[in-house]
């Protein structure tokens, strides 16, 4: 579903590349999370997948990127928008500001795609329920709390039923329960609806629990790639700008004191930590 070959990108006037000879293949329906320090290239890769690079951000793009069979550099943004949905890190950037209610805001993308009104209403209602926004349906988008705005931003993209969903830190403003709910939703979308998920996030424990695959970026390159528990059970992640799960660090220290399970991988999730200390 996503095929990147030797992708290198320089922002305008930048000397160092933000993406550096990056090759990556993500099959349909995979929930792939990307981690790394701020500045490692997570957002840049997300912008490339959605076509903001090179259509909106100029700069120099080399190599090849295909998303859902479209060569991103050759496909107009309007056409990509029907296939790839993007959720911004900051929901305040997503919300149009042109709509008076949450319901209208969610319908905005469908209006632009020319969906008939009855279908539109049904899809908007479904999305309000799914994202827990029913009570806020008739409120102004700008009167919502940060967390509600983040859920609205996701709803307004998901309602267009993209094949690929790209999210840049979509839970940064959410409470812990709200973050977990989003990860669960993404798990369901990938598993049941075969939507390919590309998620940039710092939330190691949730990624280990819900994602199929984790990529670690550093200096615009993929430096690690594999099953999340295997990659993320590393107390040294912090040198890559990633906060390890509290359980991994704890178990690491425990071993130094001769406590806990002596062999096997370090835990990342609560369930793994329980097993480690039992």
């Amino acid at each position, binding site marked *: 579903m996503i095929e990147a070959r030797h992708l290198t990108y320089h922002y305008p006037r930048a000397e160092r590349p933000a993406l550096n000879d990056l090759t990556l293949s993500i099959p349909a329906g995979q929930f792939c999370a990307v981690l790394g*320090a701020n500045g490692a290239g997570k957002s840049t890769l997300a912008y490339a997948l959605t076509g903001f690079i090179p259509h909106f951000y100029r700069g120099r793009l080399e190599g090849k990127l295909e998303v859902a069979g479209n060569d991103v550099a050759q496909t107009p943004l309007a056409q990509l928008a029907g296939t790839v949905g993007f959720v911004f*890190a900051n929901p305040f950037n997503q919300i149009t500001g042109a709509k008076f209610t949450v319901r209208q805001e969610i319908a905005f993308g469908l209006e632009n795609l020319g969906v008939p009104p009855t279908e539109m209403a049904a899809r908007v209602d479904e999305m309000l329920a799914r994202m827990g926004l029913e009570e806020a349906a008739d409120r102004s988008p700008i009167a919502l709390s940060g967390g509600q705005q983040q859920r609205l931003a996701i709803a307004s993209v998901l309602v267009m039923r993209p094949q690929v969903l790209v999210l840049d830190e979509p839970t940064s403003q959410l409470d*812990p329960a709200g973050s977990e709910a989003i990860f669960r939703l993404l798990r369901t979308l990938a598993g049941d609806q075969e939507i390919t998920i590309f998620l940039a996030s710092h939330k190691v*424990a949730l990624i280990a629990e819900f994602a199929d695959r984790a990529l670690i970026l550093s200096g615009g390159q993929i430096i690690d790639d594999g099953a999340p528990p295997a990659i993320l059970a590393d107390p040294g992640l912090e040198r890559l*700008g990633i906060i390890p799960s509290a359980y991994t660090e704890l178990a690491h220290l425990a071993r130094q004191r001769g*406590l806990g399970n002596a062999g096997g991988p370090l835990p990342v999730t609560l369930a793994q930590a329980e097993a480690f200390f039992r």
Partner: protein
Amino acid sequence: MEILVDDVTFTYPGNVLALDGVTLTVASGEAMALIGENGAGKSTLARHLNGLLKPGEGRVLVGEWDTREHTVAQLAQRVAFAFQNPDDQLFARTVRDEVAFGPRNLGRSAAETATAVEMALEQVGLGGRADAHPYDLPVADRKLVTLAAVLAMETPLLVLDEPTAGQDAEGIRRVGDIVEQLKDAGRTIIAITHDMEFCAAHFGRVVVMAGGQIIADGAAGEILRQSELLARADVQPPQLVRLAQALGLPGTPLTRAAFLDLYEEKQQ
């Protein structure tokens, strides 16, 4: 500088009741975390502390000042506020101007302002970006610019709304270090946060909000172990506390060392 929130009720236009009889005292030099689900009223309460919002009923005193009798500009001498969304706050053309805005408006001299700006930018790790346009920085750095802007005002009271949101490991450590420095300097800090690890590591007092009310207020060790109480605010205990509970360890370990001590004791 002490804060008194006295039975405050606040309703947003459209009849949305955001604060419902909130009473809270914060002593000078206290470090307090305000936690709770999205929409609980945390940001609304915080915006009462610098006078951006005035109580519908009840009163808010900052020092001896009643916020209804003082302008936001006057209150800014006492309270600095870093917004959750940096883009609500940033407007200047360079990072330096942005951070200088506060001290300049508080009447500091050009030399004092320059020093305060330089120190604040060093503190947040953006010393090399003073000439950048704030919107050329990534959102996590824009958020650190708002923190620098607050630090440069050198107010006795700081209100930080989700200071660690969107930060990577280094950013979170930096924000934590800054909170510790402020505590050492005797400043009063109120932080709204969803980050339970950050909360457990740096804040002695925790106030829990749900549905526009304060549902718990006490020492971090006391509050953060009550999973049922926290669940009412859609919050979970910190990871270490959850693990300790799952393993049946006594006590509320807020640090790794405390956890391992408890665990070792139980093994013996």
